[in-house]
């Protein structure tokens, strides 16, 4: 008899848990077959309030786009803005708990998109007009299982090497184009400017460590998406000793071993890297354009110094000057299935407007390269000019954004930086993360 109470409690707990499991499983199991295009016969509603979850990183141009849509449509966008550093986890938590907005600003790319189970929880946008205009970007940045769920307005983020012009000029060095150049520049700088860190690495923030080792090196192997295809079709593995991934990790490890990084590479933060390259205590830093330019601009605010006078930008990969680019969380939108047909239709109207009538003004104000065909690129100014030049020399979509399990890379490269893993071990661990994530998607 003594044992009956715990048994009843256990049974009760199991019953409640089972109910929760089934509730979770059945949630939003609406009509998955309807696409956004099939809803276009319904008139676009007005006077609807649409909730949008967005990141605090949204630019003034994007905020003006929302206002312009409100004026044009008669609908209202109620912004729920999350801090950028906790954005993904906050959204994931609310999403899993069953809460959903009408419009979601979210990371582009298969890796992050798959984590939101788009085939069951998002509206299929494949037959909207913007898909054709966005071209291959639509099928790479916001697509899952052959269907397009996201619209990417831009701006795109470019990954490459930012360098201090004066430091390189004083040392008589040209900006690097390959990893061999990085290595030789490092050797030269260590001799000619011993007080300067040749390359600044910010392991204290974890995520920057993946840029040099896992994004830039592999860029010229994936100019047409061939490397990602080979990985997805299992013709190549991330752990292959002679594959681009492990080779990139080896090149990174060699730079680390050769003392090319700052002394506090394992603890320094991203903001330290921007300060160092601006002040010239570091010669180069591998970073993405949005983060670096925003941080550097804030750092130079109130001074007469122009960013483009201090810093230059160049694409660097294994064998040539190829930059990697990826769409951003800012300006990439998905439409969750809310079950409210009026709001869903109004949300589709927002996507059509933002990628159609509202797009030209947005691109002009943002000064960004258009992601939709049929629009002229606005004139680029300042450091963006260097980035445009580098883009024209060679660019590849960052394979990592579409790599299942790609979010594990930063932890693995951070351990590589700290010499806790060899490049081969790091490659194998990354392959395990990839295989695990791939299995979850199927």
């Amino acid at each position, binding site marked *: 008899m003594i044992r009956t109470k715990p048994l009843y409690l256990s049974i009760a*707990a*199991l019953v*409640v*848990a089972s109910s*929760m*499991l089934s509730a*979770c*499983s059945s*949630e*939003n*199991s609406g009509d998955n077959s309807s696409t956004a295009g099939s809803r276009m016969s319904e008139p676009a509603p007005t006077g609807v309030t649409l909730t949008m979850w967005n990141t605090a990183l949204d630019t003034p141009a994007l905020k003006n786009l929302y206002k312009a849509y409100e004026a044009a449509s008669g609908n209202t966008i109620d912004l729920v803005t999350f801090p950028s550093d906790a954005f*993904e*986890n906050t959204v*994931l938590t609310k*999403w*899993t708990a069953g809460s959903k907005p009408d419009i979601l600003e979210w990371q582009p790319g298969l890796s992050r998109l*798959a*984590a*939101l*189970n788009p085939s*069951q*929880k998002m509206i299929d946008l494949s037959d909207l007009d913007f898909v054709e205009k966005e071209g291959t970007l639509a099928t790479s940045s916001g697509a899952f299982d052959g269907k397009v769920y996201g619209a990417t307005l831009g701006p795109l983020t470019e990954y490459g090497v930012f360098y201090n012009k004066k430091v390189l000029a004083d040392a008589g060095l040209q900006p690097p184009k390959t990893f061999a150049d990085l290595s030789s520049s490092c050797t030269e700088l260590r001799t000619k400017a011993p007080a300067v860190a040749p390359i600044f690495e910010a*392991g*204290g*923030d*974890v995520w920057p460590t993946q840029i040099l080792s896992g994004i830039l090196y592999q860029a010229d192997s994936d100019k047409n998406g061939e490397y990602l295809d080979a990985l997805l079709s299992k013709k190549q593995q991330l752990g292959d000793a002679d594959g681009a991934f492990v080779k990139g990790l080896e090149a990174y490890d060699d730079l680390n071993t050769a003392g090319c990084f700052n*002394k*506090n*590479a*394992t*603890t320094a933060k991203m903001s330290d890297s921007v300060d160092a390259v601006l002040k010239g205590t570091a010669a180069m830093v591998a970073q993405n354009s949005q983060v670096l330019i925003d941080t550097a601009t804030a750092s130079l605010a109130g001074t007469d110094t122009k960013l483009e006078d201090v810093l230059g930008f160049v694409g660097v990969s294994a064998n040539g000057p190829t930059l990697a680019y990826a769409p951003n969380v800012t300006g990439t939108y998905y439409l969750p299935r809310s079950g409210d047909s009026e709001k869903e239709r109004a949300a589709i109207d927002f996507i059509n407007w933002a990628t159609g009538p509202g797009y030209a003004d947005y691109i002009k104000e943002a000064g960004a390269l258009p992601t939709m065909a049929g629009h002229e690129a606005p004139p680029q100014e300042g450091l963006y000019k260097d980035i445009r030049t580098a883009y024209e020399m060679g660019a590849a979509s960052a394979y990592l954004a579409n790599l299942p399990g790609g*979010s*594990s890379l930063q*932890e693995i490269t*951070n*351990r*590589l*930086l*700290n*010499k*806790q*893993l060899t490049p081969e071990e790091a490659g194998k*661990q990354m392959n*395990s*993360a990839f295989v*695990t*994530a791939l299995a*979850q*998607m199927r």
Partner: protein
Amino acid sequence: MNIQTDNRPGTDVEPPPQATPASPQSWSSDLGATLRRLSWGPWGRIGFVVPGLILIILFFVLPFTFGSIFAFVDWTSYREELRWAGFDNFRLIGELGVLSHAVKVTAIFAFAVMVIQNFVSLSLAVALQKSSKINSVFRTLFFIPVLMSPLAAGYIWSAILRPEGPLNQLISIVVPGEFDYAWLGHETSALLSVAAIESWKWSGLVTLVYIAGLNGVPTSVLEAAKIDGASAWQRFWRVKFPLMAPAFTFNVVVSLVGSLSAFDVIMSTTNGGPGNATSVLNVALYQQYSQGFFGTSSAISLVVTLLVLCTAVPLVAWLRRREVSM
């Protein structure tokens, strides 16, 4: 003997003067007597238990029960369906090397916190035992970190411990040459540093418990030991320390068990790094969760709970036996 100036426990004191009917002592004395006279009966007593019980059920029993069940469920954000997975989640985190590493780091971290915190706090308690104005100021100062947000404490310490930070600048005054050691940049020093920060954060509380324990030692026993010729050191180890065993039990268990669940101080100082050198179980749990792997995340959560139970229960039992034997 004056009761105001000598509050040593166990000392024979004169009975307090009879309070006048209008004084506050009289009110409290009357209220106490009234409460004692009241017969609450079983339902009345249960009434006092219910609020606490509800909180425990809501915030411990239910989350623990569901969390434990989800540890055996294949639950990710990638799929709508939840499937029974048996021990697959544990196998997966084992294969990825997450579990063994995190358990090892957690055990080292918790042991280091327990040792540092109790050593420092016991020393402080001995130094600050006597009630005086200066000691009150220091007790307050050492208690301030307890009131601080763990995240704020972590961010402050990560700034202090930077290679060019104030700690190294201070050391550079003493040590010749520029001292720029990255305390959070090397595996061992990072783990010990975060353990020290966690210890510092809670040492004020532990110190107060030790002070209460020290003040509970009867003065007559200490005086007898002194008359018998025991030195100050002998009086501490042979008399005070055994008699404050309940305080020691409480502090050892709380510091060890509390640090098994550490998270916020570590995230704000090292993010689990360098590499994964300070990735304790809760950091590993967070990393699994942030990738949308809720099943494996729940599995790690269950491991944390089991680790706490398997550590706390035998430890408390052993320390209680030790108290009796002393």
